[in-house]
Structure formats: structure tokens, C-alpha cells
């Protein structure tokens, strides 16, 4: 994706339908790109109309007969005529998606949720921290920042993955680094012979980075274990709670605060989130109480 030269038309007033019926709108797959062994990038286009969304919002994708699952939109919010989702095959719907081909049809509902507060993030340095597939929603935010480059100070991306072959959007990362002077730190947990970069966890490069806590905002997305450790590291850098944004993952079914699956204490992640500032999550025990099933 090339930084857009067109005049920025960012639609911050996303309309929410007054009445929800759970009936999706038809869409067609325009392109499928293999990213890794388990992840594919889908370029989708709604049959009728565009998809106006903000970075961090998600859509409900229906594969007729298989069901519906939520995916963050990972393309630039400035491209509204078609949009991209990054799908890891881990479940019923995502497996079905992986078996489709360009030209196949889908259903789309949304966009839903509250994205990143880009207006509040402007006039700051932007520190993006991504673990694994967490880079997908952040790619949308970074694309936004690329187009509005002059409104942001330093742009820093810290991206960790399990293995070198599971690193996503490598071309995008390289281009962001060369074209707009973004500083990119990549790290993997289990290196292979060809890997020349550092080995370790996300917080290792984070420790080395110096930030100005008065004029930095952080956007963090990753598996639940990432949040606690990254937050601790950011606090060590004196970054305040309301300058750290997380995007949380839950199994949204309705996307509009009815089905109950994404309840996080008194909040619905699909409506109040999925993007929260750390300040909003403090004292809410279910934000990070997760344990993987194999711990039991």
C-alpha cells in the first residue's frame, strides 16, 4: 500500500445503524495474499457502497453456512471503497475463509466498535507495539499516520513474533522504514538460521527505546500476556495511563452489546472498545485475568 497522495478525507463520524437486524451485506473477495503459513490477507469489497471505518474498528465477516467472526480492518481508513482483513486460520470461520478464492462472496456487517482516538494522538510521537497478529489492526493506524505524517512526531514500531517466518507485513514494514522515516524494531522468539535480527521478547527492544513521556502516545495490540508486560515497561518510561492504548480481543457475536460474550466487567468490548486507554482498564479485573487452557 502506497501512502495516499489524494487529499485526506477522514470520516470520523461513523454512522451506527439505528436498528440492528444482524443481516449482513453482500461482499466479494477481490484478492487473497498469502502472508505466512497460517495467515492470509483478504481484500474485500462491499457489493453496494463503501465501508467507512476508523483505525481499530472491526467488521463481522460471514461465510454463509459456516458462521460469522469478527476481524479488525487492517487497511488504511482513507481507502473506503475496498478494505483488507488479516485472517489466521484458528477456527471454524477463519478456516472456511482460508478455503475461499478471489471472486467468492461473503457477508459483511459493521464497522463496529471504537477505534484509536487519532485526533487525540496527533501532535505526539507515536509508539506502536505489536505482538504477533496484533500488527493487523495497528497497520490501519500506521497507514493513517503515514498519510497524516506532518501531524505526528516520531513514529516507532516495535514488533515481535514467534518465528521469522511468522512475521507479517514485511514489505509494509520495510517501506514505512524507508519512505517515511519510521523506526522499526523487529524481534523474534525462536530464530532460524537466516535470522539476523535480535532474539527475545517484545519488551527487550522496548527497554532500549527512549521516549519523551510528555509527548508520546502508545498503541499496543497483542495476545493478553503482552498487555501486562508492555504496560509495565511503558510505566518504567513514565508514560501515563491515559497515553497508553490497547485494543482487546474477544469473541464478538453481535458486535452491538447484546450477546454478552465480550463483557469485560461493566463494559462491552465491542461497544466501549475494542480500543481502551490503560486508564479505562485500571481496576477492571477481567481485562487481563485470562489464563490459557493448558495452564489448568
Amino acid at each position, binding site marked *: 500500500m502506497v501512502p495516499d497522495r489524494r487529499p485526506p478525507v477522514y470520516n470520523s463520524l461513523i454512522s451506527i445503524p439505528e*436498528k440492528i437486524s444482524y443481516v449482513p451485506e453482500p461482499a466479494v473477495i477481490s484478492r487473497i495474499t498469502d502472508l505466512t503459513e497460517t495467515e492470509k490477507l483478504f481484500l474485500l469489497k462491499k457489493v453496494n457502497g463503501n465501508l467507512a471505518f476508523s483505525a481499530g474498528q472491526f467488521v463481522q465477516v460471514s461465510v*454463509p*453456512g459456516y458462521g460469522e467472526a469478527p476481524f479488525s480492518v487492517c487497511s488504511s481508513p482513507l481507502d473506503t471503497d475496498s478494505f483488507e482483513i488479516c485472517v489466521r486460520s484458528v477456527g471454524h470461520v477463519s478456516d472456511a475463509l482460508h478455503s475461499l478464492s478471489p471472486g467468492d*462472496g461473503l457477508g459483511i456487517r459493521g464497522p463496529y466498535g471504537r477505534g484509536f482516538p487519532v485526533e487525540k494522538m496527533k501532535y505526539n510521537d507515536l509508539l506502536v507495539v505489536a505482538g504477533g497478529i496484533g500488527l493487523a489492526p495497528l497497520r490501519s493506524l500506521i497507514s493513517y499516520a503515514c498519510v497524516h505524517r506532518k501531524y505526528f512526531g516520531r513514529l516507532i514500531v516495535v514488533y515481535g513474533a514467534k518465528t521469522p517466518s511468522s512475521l507479517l507485513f514485511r514489505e509494509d514494514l520495510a517501506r514505512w522504514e524507508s519512505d517515511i522515516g519510521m523506526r522499526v524494531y523487529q524481534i523474534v522468539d525462536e530464530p532460524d538460521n537466516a535470522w539476523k535480527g535480535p532474539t527475545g521478547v517484545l519488551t527487550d527492544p522496548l527497554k532500549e527505546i527512549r521516549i519523551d513521556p510528555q509527548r508520546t502516545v502508545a498503541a499496543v495490540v497483542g495476545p*493478553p500476556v503482552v498487555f501486562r508486560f508492555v504496560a509495565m515497561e511503558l510505566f518504567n518510561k513514565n508514560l501515563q495511563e491515559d497515553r497508553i492504548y490497547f485494543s482487546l480481543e474477544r469473541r464478538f457475536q453481535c458486535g452491538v452489546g447484546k450477546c454478552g460474550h465480550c463483557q469485560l466487567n461493566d463494559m462491552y468490548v465491542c461497544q466501549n472498545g475494542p480500543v481502551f486507554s490503560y486508564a479505562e482498564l485500571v481496576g477492571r479485573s477481567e481485562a487481563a485475568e*485470562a489464563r490459557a487452557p493448558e495452564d489448568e
Partner: protein
Amino acid sequence: MEKSICRVFPVRGLVTLVEQLMQKHPVMGPRERADQPGFYKFDWLETPEDFIPEYTTTTLPPKKAFFPPEQTLFRFQSGLPPEFRMIRENFPFVLAGVHPCDLAALDMLDRAYGHPPAESLWHENRRRAVVIAMDCMPDDYCFCTSVGTCDERFPCDLFLTNIGDEYLAEIYSSKGQQILTGVRTRGVRERDLKKAEQQRRLKKEAVSARFNSPVARLAGILEKGGLTDVWKQIAEHCYSCGSCNITCPTCFCFNMHDTFDFTLQGGTRHRSWDSCQLLEFALIAGGENMRAERWQRVRHRWYRKFLYLYRQFGRPYCTGCGRCSRACTADINMVDVTNGLIDGARSEAAGV
């Protein structure tokens, strides 16, 4: 109670009333269960005599008239592009014999599903129905006086109270007025209102189970947190079967799933009732479970009913119907547990 909205008709007039309603519309009302005599269910009436006015709390709440256990949302047809076609029932019907606690539940679900963005399914179904409610006598499980639903009159069109050999009918809408034209009624006298008042007093006195603290205080107790030992104690008995959620008149969580036609060219998407007590409820795609421990799920039910939804919509999301306690396979009782929490909070506050 306003005298002007009341009429009185003889007890035998009820069958006439139901009969007349059935001539125009399908009527759902309390019937005896064929599989379990002595137990009742809301179902479509086949004859006016199916309607049992003196029924005790049904196994499933009347919310199923508007939000059935399994509901078809739309049809899909494969193709380029695929087609999605909404499916709706649209015949008008009557829901008769709803107890005050179940009326309260309808109000709660109106609020929950009506919260923006409002859900069209619930509201379209609600608009199709005329609701006739009637007063009741409690059993050992009922605790409506503790949650303030025993005198609920909203949202119904007509409310009936048995006053000896007559019914006092309170009219709450023009539809309710319209229904009453089907039977011979008389104007209300002071004596009738006294009898109804007496009836309500008797009912309240008959409620034996109660919370040891005003329900508004529960939110504060729960919000304070702690009490982990109490939760774990309850969880030791809980089987996580979800019977409490499935019988609850105010639970509104659901799951969506698809079914293919045998041609594999099209199919339908449904939604079905879900339960936050099941292990998979808060599972996320990465494999983590946000409430993997049984006690967290047990706690979640109380938090949601008495704290989260109480704060969001301004009333506790418990009607005091006692269905969860009746249905519990481990005899976990809503009132006992809640009182255990109140006691636990008191002793924690006292530093014991």
C-alpha cells in the same frame, strides 16, 4: 390505583374472553405440561380451557414469545454475490396470563435490546403482541418483594386480579380496553379495590424468601470485590450446567450459528440462548478463556444481574421469580447465596 381505569367481570367471563381472543389471534398462555403434570409452560392455546389462571411459575419464562430459544435471523443463498434475506414472523398474537415478575422481565429486556443500537427483532416481536397480565400467589422460591417486582404493572395492556368470584381488570392501553369489550363488565366499586388491595397484601405476606439487605445495596457490596472465598464455596457445588441462565427471564445472551440446506446452496442463520456459566462462553480466538475458573463464572452472574446491568439500566436484572433456584441441579439458591454475600460483606467490614 385509579378507579377510572378499572372494570370488573365474573370469573367465568375469563374463558369467554380467551375464547374470543382465540377467534381473532393465536393466544399464548400458561398450560399444564403434558410431560410433567403439575408443572406449567407458556404455549399456544388449543382450546380456551387450556388456559390455567391459577398456574404456578412456568419452567421457562414468557420471554420466549418474543425471543424463542432458537430463532431464525435470515436466509442466505450462495452465489455471486450471496443473498441475505431477513426472515420474520409477522402475525399479531396475544400473550396472556403473565405474572408481575415476568412483566418486569419484559421491561428489562425492552431496555436491554432497546439500548442503542436497538435490536429490530425484539421490538418487532414485541409490537405484534398484546400482553394480558394477572396477579399470582408465591411459592417457597419466590422473592419478588426483595427486588421490587411484586406490584409490577408495566408493560401490559390489561392486568387482572382475582377478587373472589370476580376479576378486577386494570386497563393500561386502548388495546386492553378493546379486549374487554368482549365480556360483560361492570364499573368498579370501592369494595372491589379493597379486595384487590387485600389480595396484594396476602401475596406479599406469603413471600417467605427474602434478601437480608435492600437490593440497591448489593451493587455496592459486589463492586467492593473480595468475597472470593464465598464465590469459591458456591462454585464447589455448581456444575456449570447453565440451567439458571436458560430458565432466567432476564438473561439475554445468545449465540449465532448457521445451518445448510441439504442442497448446500443456501441455508439459515439462527440464534439460540447462551449461558455465561458454560466454560466456552468467554473463550477468545487465541485460546485464552476470560473466565476459565468456575467461581469467576458464578460471580459473573451475580455481577451482571445486580451490578453491571443495575448500573446500566437503573434496575436490578433479577425479578425474584426463583426459576434459577428451582432449576438448579445442585440446589444453589439465589436468595441463600445473596444473603451469604451480604453476611460475608458484613463480616469483612467488621474485620472478622
